[in-house]
């Protein structure tokens, strides 16, 4: 699936005045994949999208589309379409006219348009809304119109700029599933921008974590979650305990004065490293059996599990477990070797 990149970004930089928002981005986007650009606001992810869409020009670097440089190509000549953050529907047109906008520009025969619009609206579940005024639609419905309007042009790539940002939590969940479904159905590449890590993890084939104009890590959701390559990724995605330690040798790491077995290899001996421990990977065992002991100092019920803060000799650990313990209980903690993720200090 991943042999043919449809879009290649090569060493892209972008300056706004004297502010550098992208500092050398290299990125390959493949056919049929759902790729998510994830990062905090201001990290440059939307700028990448706008460069691909043709709304911004890169200060330096190359944008290749199927191998051709499209840096100078205006947006209306690119085979990509965008779904904008706040729907950006044309308020003076009704649902039908909004969706048909692109086809009207191409002077497509009206009968063909009617057919295609009908198909699109059926796909996004808005059949029968043709004559409705777009301003009278709910947020979710507007979003669907925006998607239909972009997809009707049969782009090779669909760019989505935080499309779910303005929806409420419940609707958001539904739309995530819906979007994934639509992507499967039309079988084209989606490039999705979000700052919501959960959204990224649920929908994506590939996640590109960005910060400060630099790509931090590219990988599948599972890779990104389980094997964050640096402290930023670890902190940004999911919750974690990050602890400085030393790599004694391959598969043996030492932190908090205790040696642990792990699965990581390829570090120098006695290299200073950081260890990521996901709170749900910390197992609670009786204190008497444990290498690492501590006392529960806070307890919050989170629905499925409890979140405890455990005070140990060196630090507090965040621990998630479904077991119920009283405040002040002395417990022991243990971690399985494959749950220990060792990172270089970045």
């Amino acid at each position, binding site marked *: 699936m991943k042999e043919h990149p449809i879009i290649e970004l090569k060493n892209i930089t972008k300056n706004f005045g004297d502010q550098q928002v992208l500092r050398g981005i290299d990125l390959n986007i493949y056919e049929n994949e759902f790729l998510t650009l994830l990062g905090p606001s201001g990290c440059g992810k939307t700028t990448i999208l706008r460069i691909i*869409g*043709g*709304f911004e020009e890169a200060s330096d670097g190359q944008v290749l589309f199927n191998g051709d440089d499209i840096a100078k190509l*205006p*947006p*209306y000549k690119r085979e*990509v*379409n*965008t779904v*904008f*953050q*706040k729907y*950006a529907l*044309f*308020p*003076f047109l009704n649902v039908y006219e909004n969706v048909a*906008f*692109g086809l009207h*520009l*191409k002077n497509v025969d009206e009968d063909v348009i009617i057919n295609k619009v009908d198909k699109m609206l059926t796909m996004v579940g808005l059949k029968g809304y043709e*004559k409705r005024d777009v301003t009278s639609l709910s947020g979710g419905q507007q979003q669907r119109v925006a998607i239909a*309007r*972009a997809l009707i*042009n049969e782009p090779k790539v669909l760019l989505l700029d935080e499309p779910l940002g303005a929806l409420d939590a419940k609707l958001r969940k539904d739309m995530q599933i819906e979007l994934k479904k639509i992507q499967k159905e039309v079988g084209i590449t989606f490039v999705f921008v979000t700052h919501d890590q959960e959204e990224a993890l649920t929908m994506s084939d590939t996640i590109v974590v960005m910060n400060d104009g630099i790509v931090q890590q590219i990988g599948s959701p599972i890779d990104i979650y389980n094997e964050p390559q640096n402290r930023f990724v670890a902190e940004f995605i999911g919750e974690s305990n990050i602890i400085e330690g030393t790599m004694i040798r391959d598969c043996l790491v030492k932190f908090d004065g205790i040696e642990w077995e792990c699965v990581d290899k390829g570090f120098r001996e006695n290299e200073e490293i950081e260890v990521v421990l996901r709170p749900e990977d910390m197992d609670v065992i009786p204190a008497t059996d444990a290498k690492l002991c501590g006392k529960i100092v806070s307890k919050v019920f989170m629905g499925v599990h409890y979140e405890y803060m455990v005070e140990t000799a060196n630090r507090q650990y965040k621990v998630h477990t479904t077991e119920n313990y009283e405040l002040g209980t002395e417990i022991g903690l243990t971690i399985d070797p494959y749950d220990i993720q060792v990172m270089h200090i970045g």
Partner: protein
Amino acid sequence: MRLKKISLGPKLYIAVCFLFFYLPIAVTMFFSFNSSKSLTHFTGFSLHWYEKLLTDQNILAAVYVSISIAIFATIISTILGTITAIGLSKSRKVLKEWILNVNNIPIMNPDIVTAISLMILFTSARLERGYITMLLAHIAFCTPFVITSVYPKVRSMDHNLADVAMDLGATPFQALTKVIVPLLRPGIFAGMLLAFTMSLDDFVVSYFVTGNGVANISIIVYNMTKRINPTINALSTLLILAVVIVLVGVNLWPAIKAKRRGNPKYQAVTKRKSKKLVPILAGICIIAVGITCVTQFSAISSKQVLRVFNSGEYIDMDLIAQFEDEYDCQVVYETFDSNESMYTKLQSGATYDILVPSDYMIERLIEEDYLKKIDWKQITHKDDIIPSLMENNEFDPKNEYTVPYYWGTVGILYDTNVVDEEDLAQGWEILRNPKYKGDLYMYDSERDSFMIALKTLGYSMNTTNKKELLEAYDWLIQQRETMDPVYVGDDVMDNMISGNKALAVVYSGDGTYVIDENEDMSFFVPEQGSNVWTDGMVVTKDCNNMELACQFMDFFLDKEVAIQNTEYIGYDSAVQSVYDYYREGDYAGNPGCGPDTSNPLNEVFRNQPQKIKAFTANLWTKIKSHK
């Protein structure tokens, strides 16, 4: 508060305010159906004034000019303003600030300053003034209004929408026309309305920048106000009706549309129709522009043109039409309201073939080399002119330049019911008789006002002695302080016909006219002496068609023509037979008719040295500005 029942008091207040708004309009409409000229007494229903209006070529031309200029100025300034507002939101800060600030100037600046600055510009650029300069000026003051109403909409618009359009395959131009313009529609519409209103209503700017006989409604109305003319009321009434119909129509349209929208058939049809509406409208506009240009230029090229610049209400326009027919030519006719303003117009670069100034101005024009000698051989009626007007003219000693037109003196028109006969012995000094405080009109003319003071003081009205002029100045200032005189222009006639005040300084011919209309009035020329004036037709250096110019002047010396013209104007004709005809006929016994030229104290105005002119002008400004 809202939707609560509104009590009677506030409603009454609204009614009173609207009464105030509409009272003058209602009166205008009412008197447009009056059978007589009066604007105060309704004498019977008649459509006479409408008939007159619809046959008056000048008014119809002005209506055309007003409307076509308003339409073109609106279209062009709307397009220019809209694209500027769109471009502005993305421009660099310096550019943005420049445009927004410069843009504020025509809005904030008084009209008069804008008008004058444009006049100076066109003069300096040697642009021939007329339709095009008026259009340029209108676009110049309309566009800022469009920008100020569109720009806020551009700023509050969702800029993503333009990106969306281009993303969906629209070229920048398509994005502009299909997305941005529809988004800005309310702002554009508001700007358009504003521009149209401003252009249609404009007087000051048009007045200063126009030329070559091109006049809009405002200018025509301004010229017409010199004499009572209920045609204006008829014009107002028609314009008001048009405006009301248009505005009500525009405001009701959305409601009608909304009702029809319920019908799906309608929608399917209109979608296609409205698509074609814009090109159709654009086409109509282009055709209209084309026709305008063609008619403007073809009219000029196909016929001989004679440009005549005359004092207001100083010719019977029917005779001009007659002349045009007889000689197959076109007369571009314009009017001025004083010799001085005529001179200013010449100075600002306007060109004419024939002027009709007064004696002293003719002298000045001769001195400053503005005039061409007349080919007297072509004036067949030369011998019909009153001989005394052809001899001993100090302003044109050999009579090489002037064909006398009308002549007369300056005197005092008085209401015999109010003014005591014995007070008349005071001569000009009656104008300072406290008995008539607040009951007199002075004539708004610099030289005649000084003439009155100088003659009263026993000096020559052509004095170059500054001391004497200062004395005259004091006399006039003192008069302003003690007598509260109202300085008027030609509206003096209407006022005196209505008997509004007891005394008025008028030209003898105006006196004749007023006395003819109101028998209570009489006229006398004070013994201290007065101004004996002659207005003459002269040909300028710019004239390329001496033959036609001579034919024109000769035409107005023809007895039949001169009688009809005199009938309209009421002054003393320079044609002997016509002069006699009225003196012995219609105006027999009318003291305004037939100036008494025997008084040795009477004088003719002479052109004065530049320094004295400037000195007097300055004093005159002070007199008029005096509180």
